[in-house]
């Protein structure tokens, strides 16, 4: 099990690398789509990364609830496999 701090650190670094943004724009309350410049289609890249790195498949319904980075950290923390 990863700690929340580990998850935050990993996710922020990965998002900055893949989506070519400054890590500083990623704050807990920032809106993911705005910070990463994602539209509804490119959000699947986020889903793919979470699946690949944490083995968690985010359903379409759950994705609509993940708006901020805090939501994403929460989701990974609670769904990560032991």
């Amino acid at each position, binding site marked *: 099990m990863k700690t929340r701090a580990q998850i935050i650190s990993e996710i922020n670094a990965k998002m900055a690398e893949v989506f*070519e943004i400054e890590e500083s724009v990623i704050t807990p309350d920032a809106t993911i789509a705005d910070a990463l*410049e994602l539209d509804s289609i*490119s959000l699947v890249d986020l889903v793919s990364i979470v699946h690949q790195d944490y083995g968690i498949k985010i359903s379409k319904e759950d994705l609509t609830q993940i708006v901020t980075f805090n939501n994403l950290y929460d989701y990974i923390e609670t769904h990560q496999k032991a």
Partner: protein
Amino acid sequence: MNHRVVITGMGLWSCLGTTLDEVRDALYTGKSGIIYNPERKDAGFRSALVGNVPVADLKPLLHRKFRNTMPEAAQYAYLATLQALEQARLDEDYLTQHEVGIIYGNDSVVEATMIGLDKFRAARDTVACGSGAIFQSMNSTVSMNLACLFHLRGINLTTASACSSGSQSIGLAAMLIRDGLQECVVCGGAEENNLFGIAAFDGIQAFSVREDDPARASRPFDRSRDGLVPGGGAATLILESYEHAVQRGATILAEVVGWGFSGNGDHISVPTVEGPMRSLENCLRNAGLQPRDIQYINAHATSTIIGDQREAKAIAQLFGDYRVPVTSTKSQTGHEMWMAGASEVIYSILMMKNGFIAGNINFEAPDDETAAINVLPETRETAFDTFLSNSFGFGGTNSTLIIKDFKN
């Protein structure tokens, strides 16, 4: 309506160079763009020969969200189109305020398709393909990407006709402009140059295996030719009506005066003589010209035994005792396939504007069939103002263009 169609911009991303000046010099000096690529041999290729096309690094130019939908061919096409638009002096303001179209040749997206599907198969999850995969793996990827990036709001179309794709894009664009349906169209051709794109082509043993001497491997019309050398990159031309160009104050480079096309309706890979000949005849008729009006032919000739023979025979039958100078720039570039019909028009315009015909390098002696035409083995300094460019493709798809010089 019958508008004159002129060319006001050209751009290249080629194994002979990435600026018009660089390519002009390479053509003049007979430089070969062919190399031996050991990666291909290691991967299991019969022939490791390939055009040495520079890597396209778009990271400094385009954000990831734009690059995400662009496979290799679209990246080359973007760089070639930037140059062509700049030469034509068509800036973003103009493009967003006017209806400029795009017709671009492309006929494969093999690597992008393979990468997306490999991810899907490994993860057993379609999401793993990534958000850009669908846009990268459609054959119209070049025209769709360029239309969005450059804000092109007119016709948005891909020509996919094998090795005549680039030529057909120019022909179709010229027809739309001539008929008054478009005033300005971006056209050209792009070809992915990765090994996956042409692995199956290598598999049918169509490529030269003269691996010990890459620069001498592509030898169209020469009697010791042993197959083509694959190449790639992109070539873009800006076509517009004469009135539109004059109104904008653009510098006119040349004029598209004729387009002809035909289908062989026969074998999928073995060309005929009759089909290409009809393409040439149709083009001359469309231009209102006679064979003796043509001062140079940029041949399709790819360095295959039968293809070069059939083209030579078609030219010889049509041109009779008029020994029109013929060369194939594929002797220097290899076969740029979907790009070739567009790049070879640019190569020929560069020659025409600079008073020379690039020699058909590696042409030492003809065979019985290719002896029927006048192949120039070395660069000749000569003024000419009208040339014809042939492009023929798998499935028996033939396209011929006639271009005239334009003095401003």
